[in-house]
Every structure is written in C-alpha cells, then in structure tokens.
C-alpha cells in the first residue's frame, strides 16, 4: 500500500469517530427522552409509587439525563449495551447470537444479487435500447415494486406448499433439530466442520428461500445502478479508443468500461450491505429467521427500549463501516482519488 493511500485511510478513520459519536448520542436521546416510560413494562398499572421508584432506581432512571448519558457512554465504551427487558440478557450477547444467522442470509442474498445484477446491468447498459436492455428495465422495475414479504410468501407457496421441494418458514433448521455446536455460529459452516452432512444439507435447504427472496429484493437496484452507470461510461471518449483499437467487446464492457462504472455500483452495494444486515426485517419475519433485523422488530413491538437502543447503535455502526469500506474500494479503483 502506498503512503498516499494509507494517509487517506487514516483521515477517513478520524472522520468515522465523530460520526459514530453523533449517532450514539442521537440514539440515546431518542430512547430516553421520547420513548414511553419503560418502568410500566415491569409492573402492573396499579402498582404503588414506592415500587415504581424502586424500579426506577434499579434501571438508573432516577438520575438526571446528563448523568444517564454519562453512564450509557461509559458502559458503551466497555461494549455494554445494557440488558434487554424482555430476554433479561445483555443486549450485546443477544445481538452476537443473532449475527451468524444474519451473516448467512446476507452472504447468500448479496452473492446472488451481485453475480446476477452486475453482469446483467453491464450488458444492458452497454447495449442500450437493445432487447436485453428493455427486458432488464422492465423486470427490475417490477422487482423494485414487489413487496418483499409478499414475494417471500409466494415463494413459500410454490416451493413448500405446492412442490414440497424446500422447507417451510421455520427458521434456520427443521423444527426439533439440534444446532451444531457453536464454532462460528454459521450453521452451514459449523455442520461441515463437525462432519455432519445431513445437518449441513438441512441448513442449506433452509437458507435457499429466504436468501432468494432477499436476493431478488436487492438485485433490482444493483442492476439498475449498474446499467445507468454503464450507459454514462459507454458514451466516453476513452471507450471509443479501445473500439478503434479493435479490442474485443467483452474486454471493453467488463474491463475498460466496468471499472469506470464501478463507483456508483459499489456505493449502492455499500448501502445494501447495511440494509441486509439490519433492515431485512420483513424477510426475516416471514421466514422466522432469527437475525438482527427481527431482533430490532421484536424490540419495537415489545417496547424493549434497551434492546432497541442497542440495535440502533449496531445498525448505524454497520452502515458507517459499510461506507468506510466503500471509500476504501473507491481508492483502490480510481487512481485520481489517491
């Protein structure tokens, strides 16, 4: 890595810190100031004031907002996001347990979307207004308009109810199956390491429908961005040059043009990485997938403010990390940004 690149990276890292701090502060304020009184969750409505006060003290809510903020920050600095009101466990452990499920779903859906979406967008954009371009534009438009939960239900109907090829929406493994002993938490990997091929096959089968559903949801925006970016690049003079040199079309599209068209595509993928890690709530809900998005949804439904606060912090940091990675990719692609 040359010195210009590492200096740029360092500058960007310095910028990440205040952004994280701002997000954390905002989350705290929203959860403490605007959320309903959490004490009500612990006690019956007819409880007396004494009990009410006792719980307030227990939760640290008797202190002033700035004091609470100080405690919150101090805890956060040690990786402590507080305890969930509902599960009674540290929020960090809850989220940590759910991360592998989310990672599996994210890897499958992103791979699907990138492998299909980028080449399709490149070819459509390179041959603008051709038959492929018309199909791609039409199909992606429909893809963007389809609600993800509806798509999930339709796929369940076809592949589980009618054809019976794939399991229903029961989560990561068949009901009653025992998860492989935790190594990475990724069932598809852990079962392989343990040498349990039956379990591996089950975990793969359970991953297909949710992965496909989420993949279809995110393939449309990736394809459209790739297409639009290619259309722009194909007009450039530096694309006419390799044409004039007789260089093969495939090389021009997928090497000379794509590398120039990559910046908007990478930005879109960065946004989507943030989304699949924390925002795939509907897909996770439909398939009973115990991922992070579903954790956030449950926290909202049950007014679990500590869990929600922890979820929002993690979600924001995920986005910040994704965009930081996008910045790094930018610098690797485009020498002008170094």
């Amino acid at each position: 890595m040359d010195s210009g690149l590492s200096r740029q990276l360092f500058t960007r890292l310095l910028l990440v810190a205040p952004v994280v701090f701002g997000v954390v502060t905002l989350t705290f304020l929203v959860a403490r100031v605007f959320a309903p009184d959490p004490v009500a969750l612990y006690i019956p409505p007819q409880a007396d004031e004494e009990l009410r006060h006792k719980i307030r003290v227990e939760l640290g809510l008797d202190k002033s907002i700035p004091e609470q903020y100080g405690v919150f920050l101090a805890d956060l600095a040690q990786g402590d996001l507080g305890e969930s009101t509902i599960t009674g466990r540290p929020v960090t452990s809850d989220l940590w347990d759910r991360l592998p499920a989310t990672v599996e779903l994210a890897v499958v859906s992103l791979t699907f979307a990138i492998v299909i979406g980028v080449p399709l967008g490149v070819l459509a954009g390179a041959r603008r207004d051709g038959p492929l371009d018309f199909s791609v534009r039409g199909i992606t438009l429909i893809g963007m308009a389809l609600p993800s939960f509806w798509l999930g239900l339709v796929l369940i109907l076809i592949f589980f109810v009618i054809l019976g090829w794939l399991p229903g929406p029961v989560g990561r493994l068949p009901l009653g199956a025992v998860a492989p002993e935790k190594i990475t938490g990724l069932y598809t990997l852990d079962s392989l390491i343990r040498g349990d091929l039956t379990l591996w096959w089950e975990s793969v089968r359970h991953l297909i429908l949710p992965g496909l559903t989420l993949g279809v949801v995110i393939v449309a925006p990736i394809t459209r961005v790739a297409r639009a970016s290619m259309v722009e690049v194909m007009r450039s003079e530096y694309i006419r040059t390799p044409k004039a040199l007789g260089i093969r079309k495939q090389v021009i599209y997928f090497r000379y043009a794509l590398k120039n068209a990559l910046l908007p595509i990478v930005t879109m993928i960065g946004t989507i990485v943030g989304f699949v890690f924390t925002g795939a709530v509907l897909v996770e809900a439909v398939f009973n997938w115990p991922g992070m998005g579903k954790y956030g949804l449950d926290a909202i439904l049950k007014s679990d403010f500590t869990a929600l606060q922890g979820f929002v912090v993690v979600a924001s940091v995920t986005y910040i990390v994704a965009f930081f990675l996008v910045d790094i990719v930018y610098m690797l692609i485009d020498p002008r940004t170094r």
Partner: protein
Amino acid sequence: MAVLVEIQNLEGYFDTIGGDVRAINSVNVAIEEGKVTGLVGETGSGKTMTALNIPRLMPENFRYVSGRVLFRGEDVLSWSEERMQLFRGDGVGIAFQDPKAALNPVFTVGEQLGRALRTHTDATKDEARQAALRILERVQITDPGRTIRQYAHELSGGMAQRVMVALAVIHPPTLLILDEPTTGLDVTVQAEIISMLRDLVESMGLTVLLITHDLGVVGELCDNVAVMYAGRTMEFGDISQVFEKPANPYTRELLRSTESVEGGVGDLYSIPGAPPDLRNLPQGCFFQDRCPSVADVCRTVPPVVEVEPGHVSMCHFAERYHSMPGPLHITRGAEAEGGQE
C-alpha cells in the same frame, strides 16, 4: 503510388431531434500508400467525421446518403461488424484529438499499450511490456519505465499526445489517422510533436491521414492535402499544387488568413462571414456567402474540376483561380499597396 484508401462521393447526415445536420456533403479524398495526406478546414467542416468513416466509428445517429469508402478497392461500409473489429487497430488506427479524454482514466498507460498490442498479436504480457517501453521511446518519452506506470491524469498535454500516438502505432496500422495532434499544446511542444511525428512516420513508413485546422502543420508534414468546407472537399491535390496554385477561392482565403498570422505584419486577416448552418445549407456552392467572386452560377452545385493531373477543385471558376498568380503574390502585393486588396 498505389491508392490505399479512396473516399468517393461520401454524403451523410446526423439524425437529431432538431432536424438533420448535414455534416458530410460530397467528400472525395484519395490517400496514397506511404504518403501523408492532410485534411484541413475550419472547426465543424467535417474533417473528423470524414476520417471516422474509415474505421466506421461514426456516432449512432449518423445516416449515409451515398458514397463508398474503399480500402484497397474494397468498400469498408459493406463489411460485417466482425470484420470491422479485426480491421480496427490493424488496417486503420487513430490517435484521437484530446488524448487526455481518450485515455482510460483508471488503467495505467502500460496496461492500455499492452492490451492494444496483444489484441492483434500473440505477444505475451512480458513481450507486450517490452514493446510498450520501446514504442514510448520512439515517441520520444524520456522515462518510459516511469510513464508506463502512470495514469492519464498524471501526464502533461504533450506526454498524453505522445502516449496516444504510441497507442495507435504499437501495432502499426496500415493507415494511421492523426486527429489534431498539435491542438491545445504550447507552441514549443507543438514543434516537438511535429518533429517526433515526422521521424516516426519516416522510420515506420506509415501511411497517414492528418486532420488539422492549421495549414502550418500541413506544410510541415503533408504530401497531399484535402481542403474541407461545410462537409465538402473543396480542393484536393499535392501540397505544392494546392499551396502555390490554389484553384478554389476558399483555399485562397484560408491561405491568406494563415499568411497574415505567420507574417506577423499588419492586421490579422480573417475570412468575412461565418460557415453556413449545417441544418440549413444554401443551394449550390456552400462558400457563396463569403466568396469574393460569387456569381449567379454559384447557386448551382459546382462541378469537381481537375485543373491538372491529381489536382481537383469543386468550383465553377476552378480554372480561372488556378491560372491566377499564387496567394503569396496577392498578399505581398497588397501590403505594398497599403494593406488592402
């Protein structure tokens, strides 16, 4: 000498929302093998568009009306796209105008040169690298080992032009098109580029079509010259014929304006008026509104007159102009008489 490329009666227009833009109207040029042919004219006269017909790189909205582009007697306009792809870079290569925009911003000079060579030969990556270093040396880049690792934005204007030329000739094409190779460069760099091109063309024995608006560059490099105006070749011949005994009023006016710049005395002369609107061309001769000797007959399309072997002019009065004293005498005479004609 054998004729390598012959453009015959080429005519075409751009199909635009605002109407047809008639960019090419009767172009006739013969490019002789082993010679440098100039294509000269004002901006918008259709020089680049004419040249782009040879590798068939016209914008998508270009429509042909008539004409042939013969390469060794075969009409390239009738070739399949597959054959064209093999032809490009091998039969014909181009060093584009504005090289900084024509070079890919995210690939190194070395990568682009190597790919250009390996497209047409079986060279390995390492052989291509060696060839890239050699060709950069031939376009007189001082530190090829450094340039090969650089990106377009790191190059000066003169360097980018040299790299552009290197890209076009690393696999030497039968015909090399140079599009405005000196435009936008400092005068000293221009002179260096011209001398580099002269050496390169001589040592590689290239056939060249050189596009420029600068008659000085034509005089320095060309054997033959075609003068273009509003998409027509007004005059064509070898440069001594055209420069010394121009048979077209437009060529005369062009030479006169150039001389007044190079002579550096008195007021700069420029041709009065402006070129016609390509959406709305006049009947007959396109130069009629600016011509000093316009007559009624000029409302009809002028004939292509061969005033001497190999010297043609598209003008009703071609013979009369051809027999007049050369433009040198006109301007010098005018100076002596107080700066007016």
